């Protein structure tokens, strides 16, 4: 068995997490020694190791787990399979292991990676937010992540529904790098509708997980993976979060790890913006354009990020009237009719022309908004 296989064995023991692994390694020196450790030595370790509050760290089951799972063939077989599937197994002992991650509290002992790990030289921005986001959140996530990624900053998120997906998507469309941290086994695409993103990101970035293949997306895994998201990034951008949102766990962890927090403001009345607005109140940087982020990331970045002005003619007449009624907030055709006082058939014709001209888009059927 190779060293890596011993580490693989060690990181996959039931109920043995980063803390216990650290303790075992301190005592025995290497993973191989743990594999070969005698029952007496393990019993001794059990007796010595106590947490700060004096409770025993290892239980009898933990010890049994170590003793009864020493099957070389099984470990070897599984590890070979891992490699066959193109999954990299990176432990703390490897030099590829991200430095940013190494020093956080309960850093994962091993990482499974499809694609690549973020380049240590590039800066990373974590983008987090609500799963059930509004159109506004979606537009902002795609736009901001895209604009930032274009400048060479990697976008890190959790590959969940909503803001996460849109941020990854925005970065991919802009041709940037993006990395997804999963809360389940690396071979499971969760949620499954993100399969395209999951495949695409393996080429243009990476999928990273601390969970071995086959581990189900359990609710408890997700807050834990947030510590990796925040640790790998240099700043955390929050787009749309309710006042009690899971995204705020990432923020809390980021703050512990000393990261900068950025938040996109929203209307006071929108409950999806409550969390963001609170963050701003508490001192997070208010983000209204990609420039606000880029000037923090790239020293001397002052150049006004050029908003890609939509090409084509400036709308005239009725189209101008309709266009002026629209904003990034989608409006139903009924509301537009009330505002413009145009007859329905004219309005529908002009809206279609605006849409075909690329000035306007439909968020859902017959809800129109300006192209951001």
């Amino acid at each position: 068995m190779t060293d890596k296989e011993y580490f693989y064995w060690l990181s996959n023991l039931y109920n043995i997490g980063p803390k216990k692994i650290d303790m075992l390694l301190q005592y025995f020196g290497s993973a191989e020694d743990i594999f070969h450790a005698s029952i007496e030595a393990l019993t001794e370790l059990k007796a010595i190791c106590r947490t700060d509050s004096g409770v025993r760290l290892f239980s009898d089951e933990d010890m049994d787990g170590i003793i009864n799972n020493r099957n070389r063939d099984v470990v070897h077989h599984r590890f070979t399979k891992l490699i066959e599937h193109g999954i990299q197994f990176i432990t703390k002992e490897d030099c590829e292991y991200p430095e940013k991650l190494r020093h956080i509290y309960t850093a994962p002992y091993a990482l499974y990676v499809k694609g690549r790990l973020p380049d240590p030289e590039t800066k990373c921005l974590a983008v987090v937010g609500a799963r059930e986001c509004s159109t506004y959140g979606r537009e902002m996530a795609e736009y901001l992540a895209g604009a930032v990624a274009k400048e060479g900053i990697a976008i890190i998120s959790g590959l969940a529904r909503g803001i996460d997906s849109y941020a990854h998507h925005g970065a991919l469309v802009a041709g940037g790098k993006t990395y997804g941290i999963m809360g389940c086994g690396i071979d499971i695409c969760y949620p499954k509708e993100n399969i395209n993103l999951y495949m695409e990101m393996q080429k243009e970035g990476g999928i990273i997980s601390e969970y071995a293949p086959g581990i189900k997306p359990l609710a408890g895994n997700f807050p834990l993976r947030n510590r990796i998201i925040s640790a790998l990034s240099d700043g955390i951008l929050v787009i749309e979060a309710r006042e009690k949102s899971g995204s705020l766990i990432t923020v809390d962890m980021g703050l512990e790890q000393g990261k900068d927090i950025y938040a996109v403001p929203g209307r006071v009345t929108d409950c999806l913006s409550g969390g963001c607005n609170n963050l701003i109140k508490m001192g997070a940087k208010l983000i209204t354009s990609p420039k606000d982020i880029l000037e923090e990331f790239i020293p001397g970045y002052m150049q006004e990020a050029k908003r890609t002005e939509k090409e084509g003619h400036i709308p005239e007449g009725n189209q101008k009237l309709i266009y002026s009624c629209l904003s990034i907030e989608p409006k139903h055709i009924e509301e537009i009719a009330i505002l413009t006082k145009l007859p329905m058939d004219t309005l529908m014709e002009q809206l279609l022309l605006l849409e075909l001209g690329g000035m306007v888009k439909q968020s859902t059927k017959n809800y129109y908004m300006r192209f951001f």
Partner: protein
Amino acid sequence: MFSKAYSAAIHGIDGLIVSVEADVSDGLPLFDMVGLLGSEVKEARERVRIALKNSGYQLPAKRITVNLSPADIRKEGTAFDLPVAIAILTAFGYIPEESLSHVLIIGELSLSGTINKVNGVLPIVYSARQQGFLKCIVPKENAREGAVVNGIQTYGVSTLLEVVELLNAVKEFVPEFVDVKQLFHNQDREEDIDFAEVAGQKAAKRAIEIAVCGMHNILMIGPPGSGKTMLAKRIPTIMPELSFEESMEISKIYSIAGLMDQQPLILKRPFRSPHHTITTTALTGGGITPKPGEISLAHLGVLFLDELAEFQKNTIEVLRQPLEDKSINITRLNASYRYPAGFMLVAAMNPCSCGYYPDRNKCNCSINLVKRYLGRISQPLLDRFDICIEALQMNYKELEVQEKQETSEEIRRRVSIAREIQMERYKEQNIYFNSELTPRSIKKYCKLGTKEQSLLEQAFIKMNLSARAYHRILKVARTIADLDQCEQIGTKHISEAICYRSMDQKYWGE
């Protein structure tokens, strides 16, 4: 002594003439009825015997046999009581036998000898006339219903004795008379509901107007309280008035279902709105004795399915075939019945289970949940909705605006013109409305100019529309052009039709 009276049974939506034969002979005193009878017809024996006694007739102790012919068709219902009683009285010589020829008799007897109303009088009288009968004797309550049929005299009677007097011609009886023309003329134009009462909802109203013009099925999606039901209820008020033939067709179905309510004819467009707990049979019709279901009761009118997503999936899926054929075939062991079902389907539903998507301030449903909610309706059924519109919740300010709203009457006038245009165009074909166009005839009647063609093409690419959507958009565009009284479909019509394009799952919840 043998006698024969005529009565009728309901078969599908038509009357079927049944002869009631009675024979009185010597032997053990017995009253027997044969001829494949349902249990309520068998029970007629007791009703008839006692009603005869209470009407003052003493039946001698003879062997009485009654046969209902054709004997291989199952007889149902209580309408045979009266003809059985009359046939027996004739056999005993109380009524001359020749007075029974060319007379059709129906009615239910009560023990006291009075005659109660029965269902299906209109189709029975109608077939009686076709079969060459001259007189019909029906219960008093049903007389006006039967009198609508021309060329046959309908007498309303309330007791058994009256019938005997009528047949013996001891007294002058006047046939019931209904002035159909007057009836249509006097029609209560004052509807208690009107489109003018709906504030705002311009887009939805316009969509409904177009849908009614071409008899397109329409799906309304919107949050609770946005006025979907209110709009739907007003759809019959903008449909053209019923013609006599249409009224007859509807009245026949209602007569069989027993929903005539003492009116001679149904003069208002049907509006049926079954609750979502309805069973498949209640919707399509059926049962041991097949009866028309909601879809037939909505014939030539509106079938409104509120909360479409809450209906049992298999219940609404059965609508697919009647929507194509405009009729439904109910096949049972005994026979196969065909009921008309040419209705306009109007459905309303919420966009998601909480009802407020895409308003994220109120809706906390995940995109998956939203998709699953719409997914309860199968794509083939969604395909049958040519028009789909989102009703929007009106805020207080818009409700307050005292803008003058169009009345149903004004809308109806436009609809009638557009319908006449369609009628004229399709007079050679076997169809009436744009919604009935087949892909082949679409090519013929929905020709596009180059400008329109290129617009449609661009929209197709931009919006990633399906091939299915293509035909629907063209059909709806044709109707919009008809409403505009334009021979040629223009870009305006195409654009509007695209806005009403039906809901494909991929367009919702992106």
